[in-house]
């Protein structure tokens, strides 16, 4: 089929008696309270399908109760899905038996948890080596590996401490190190930085960006923080009531919200930081240009040019061919708000 790293089709999770009956039934569309009164069931996740490409960072964003944590847990069947299929690489997760499932969890996928989930009775080294220990890697080998990873996350020399001696940010570095130690193909993050204060959170996001450059893993990242999603995600899925409302690149989500819900969400995001010039560009201008930028430049980066001149800015592709232009009106429209953007596009 595809060469995506993760492939999910028609995934459901329903809590309650005879949960499987609700899958694809009309009842599933009832409002939550009504459904619970009628069947005693709660639908946590309905009919989710997604593909994550190898090396991609896929962010799932939603408010609490939207089903995003359920989704990430279903990927390795920490929560057993009610219906649907999951494939990770060439492994069929939903069809896996116990041994296969253990192998997937041990070698292919690692997870970073919201509250770190460090084991308080172990030193940092032993916490990081936990995944290897579970795989029965010998003690010297797993210690050596753990030491190396400890360096990678910037905690060199602290290996013999216990978790409760570290700050939250440092603890989550350990959580990250633990996930990296087994050298998995896929990293899952369940709101890993939501318990950290803003400055540390930003540091950690930088850490992820750096790691991504260095280790190039496929990542599924759960968050309720839109700016975090926009910063880290190649693609973002907005989730609400157990469903994906919109899946797209950051600029698609910000630039063209699929519905009112998403629009409300992204309203306060400075669009010019997200939207690339080529997604709002006009045809090449007849006039002269006041400057030239490559495709992919964010709108905010041409503000200086158009502010100092009446002329538009030329947009060129990788080969230097002019593909379009952007003028002051369009830039202002992007900065000003959604409606004008679509107007500009139209």
């Amino acid at each position, binding site marked *: 089929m595809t060469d995506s790293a993760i492939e999910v089709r028609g995934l459901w999770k329903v809590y309650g*008696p005879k949960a499987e009956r609700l899958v694809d039934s009309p009842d599933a569309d009832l409002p939550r309270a009504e459904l619970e*009164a009628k069947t*005693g069931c709660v639908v946590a996740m309905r009919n989710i399908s997604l593909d994550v490409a190898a090396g991609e960072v896929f962010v799932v964003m939603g408010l609490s109760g939207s089903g995003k944590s359920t989704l990430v*847990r279903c990927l*390795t069947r*920490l929560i057993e899905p009610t219906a649907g299929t999951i494939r990770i690489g060439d492994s069929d997760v939903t069809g896996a038996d116990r041994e296969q499932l*253990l*192998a*997937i*969890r*041990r*070698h292919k*996928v*690692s*997870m970073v*948890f*919201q*509250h770190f*989930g460090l*084991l*308080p*009775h*172990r030193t940092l080294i032993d916490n990081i080596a*936990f*995944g290897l*220990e*579970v*795989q029965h890697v010998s003690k010297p080998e797993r210690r050596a590996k753990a030491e190396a990873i400890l360096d990678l996350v910037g905690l060199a020399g602290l290996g*013999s*401490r*216990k978790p*409760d*001696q570290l700050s939250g940010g440092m603890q989550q570095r350990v959580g990250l190190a*633990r996930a990296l130690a*087994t050298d998995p193909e896929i990293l899952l993050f369940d709101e890993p930085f939501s318990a950290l204060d803003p400055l540390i959170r930003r540091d950690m996001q930088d850490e992820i960006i750096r790691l991504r450059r260095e280790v190039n893993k496929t990542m599924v990242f759960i968050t309720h923080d839109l700016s975090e999603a926009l910063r880290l995600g190649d693609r973002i899925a907005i989730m609400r009531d157990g469903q994906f409302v919109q899946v797209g690149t950051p600029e698609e989500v910000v630039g063209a919200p699929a519905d009112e819900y998403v629009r409300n969400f992204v309203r306060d995001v400075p669009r010019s930081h997200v939207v690339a010039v080529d997604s709002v560009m006009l045809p090449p201008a007849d006039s002269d240009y006041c400057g030239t930028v490559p495709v992919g430049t964010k709108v905010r980066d041409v503000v200086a040019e158009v502010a100092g001149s009446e002329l538009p800015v030329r947009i060129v592709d990788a080969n230097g061919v002019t593909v379009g232009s952007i003028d002051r009106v369009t830039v202002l429209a992007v900065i000003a708000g959604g409606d004008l953007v679509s107007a500009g596009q139209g």
Partner: protein
Amino acid sequence: MAVASAALSTPARMPRPGLGQRLRPFAVHAALAGIVIAGIAIGRDVPSWFDAHIQSKIDQAYHWTVINNTTHWLFTWVFSPISDTIRWSTEHVLSFLQILRWPGVLIVVGLLGHRTGGRNAAVVGVTVMSGCGFLGFWDHTMITLSLMLVSVAVALLIGIPLGIWSGLSLRAEKVMRSVLDTAQVMPLYVYILPLVVAFGIGDSTAVVATVIYAVPPAVRITSLGIRAVSETTTEVGTSFGCTGWQLLLKVRLPLARRPILLGVNQVIMMAFGIVVYASLIGTAGLGGDVLTGLQKVNVGMAFAPGLAIVFAAISLDRITTGQRDERSDVDVVPTQRQLLLRRPGVAVAAGFAVVAVVALVAKLLGLDHFPASLTIDVAKPVNQAADWVSRNFRKGVPVVGGTGSFSDFVVVNLLNPTRDVLQGVAWWLIVAVALAVGLVSGGWRLGALCAGCFVGIAALQVWDLAMDTFSQVLVAVTLSLLVAVPIGVLAARSDRVERALRPLLDVAQVMPAFVYLVPVIFLFNVGRVPGVVASVIYAIPPGIRLTTLGLRQVPFAPREAAISFGATPRQELVKVQLPLATRSMMLAVNQTIIMVLSIVVVAGLIGAGGLGLETIYGLAKKEIGRGTAAGLAIVLLAIVLDRVTQAWGNRSQLVTRSSRH
């Protein structure tokens, strides 16, 4: 039931609406109406035909064992080998303790204490253990200790795996719960003779009996500990591909270490609590010394070995469950020598070497017995104190009169009216009331259980005795709470009070009731009141502990809010702390009831009559059936009271929870 047993138990499941719920009011009315109609037809008293014939069946079974215990395979192939193994163990533990001699034993105590709990535990362990020697009971303490070490080890070997199982499986927990209740509340007098017939006199039966009594807290607390490991942490294990075993060994057990240590503590306390009974069946040691003192009605003579029992228990507890503060010693750079000693093999070998050298030196110096010149005679001053108290408190105390008139007051104004009501009304009315109370407290299941238990008591043909005991339990529980709650509040407000109370509570919990029976009788006259008083002494420690714990666990935020609104300390207590501590307080009530019920038999020994006296007949007259029927009735009473109060606790928890969100 152990302290904190239900502290973390799962809350009642939210009922799911459905057909059952809509039918329930009808079912309830129908059941109540049925009871009343059937009751009126049957009459006020339990009819003689309503008899489960437990007594005669048990008597026949017992007679069969007595006749066949030398020939039947069950005895020759099952009980005898177990018995031989236990006897072999206790004998070897004892001779090991004797080889060590007293200096060696004290060194072992010190080293173990140091290892588990640091210097503090070592000092306390050694000091308290040598107290047994100063009392002049070193040799007998070693005999008792050998018995206890084997009992505690067996109880933990059985209790912890069962606890793990019940922590992992709700069904296992459900099944075990009733078994554990029975093991804990069924008076030892009921089954001690059958055990003797099966396992023989002496250590083996003593160990088996102790294990039966001490296993329940080990199971309960281990199970709670396993359940309390947060799901987020176990999820981490699962996500990294742990198998079930790996999850248990690498995540659950290490994280449940503290509760499991609490379980060890409770096992030790429980085991030492029945040392005296063990001496009834041919084991030497401190228990026998207590009984000898009791036999001579000599308070001091019973008190000294009783205190030695308490010392041995506390010492063992401190060195096994000591808590080292693991954070403190990390930043200190260890010296070369410390590093050497941290290698596990080296430390153990060094320990062995020290112990061996000390034992050898002790042997060469001929230190076979604890030096007699160091012993302190506590019997005489204790007797003097007891005499003084008896002389001065019994009567002639201004205003209140004295313990004698207090006793008469309790009999005439509390015990008699309660008993007369319980015995006076028709038995089926009590069944109906039990049904109603159960229903209101925890739903129709609980109602059915309560009613069923009382019907069971009727079928055991011990109704009037049970109502007599029930009335005493109610009075004892009320008095216990009246004492325990204020003290608990005081201890929660002052660290100093709490620290001062801790050893006293340990003593009250482990000191054999036999020791204080005599002064209690002297003060309160033979009858039900000394029984009530003994129950109160025994039952207040958990009541105080849980009250203090509950109040201290109340988060500071709501208290701070109250203070900011100008609440006085009293208002803060009454309007914020107590309501928020309701769950813990209900647990205190629950534990108090269970404690009172588990000492009913002791009350029977000092004139309380009722079911307690009836169970004594199991041993005293070999009427095993009669004792069993009474014992089962105590268990049924305990189940009703336990489940109802737990339901109250769970409900108050739900209230607190929802109010916090």
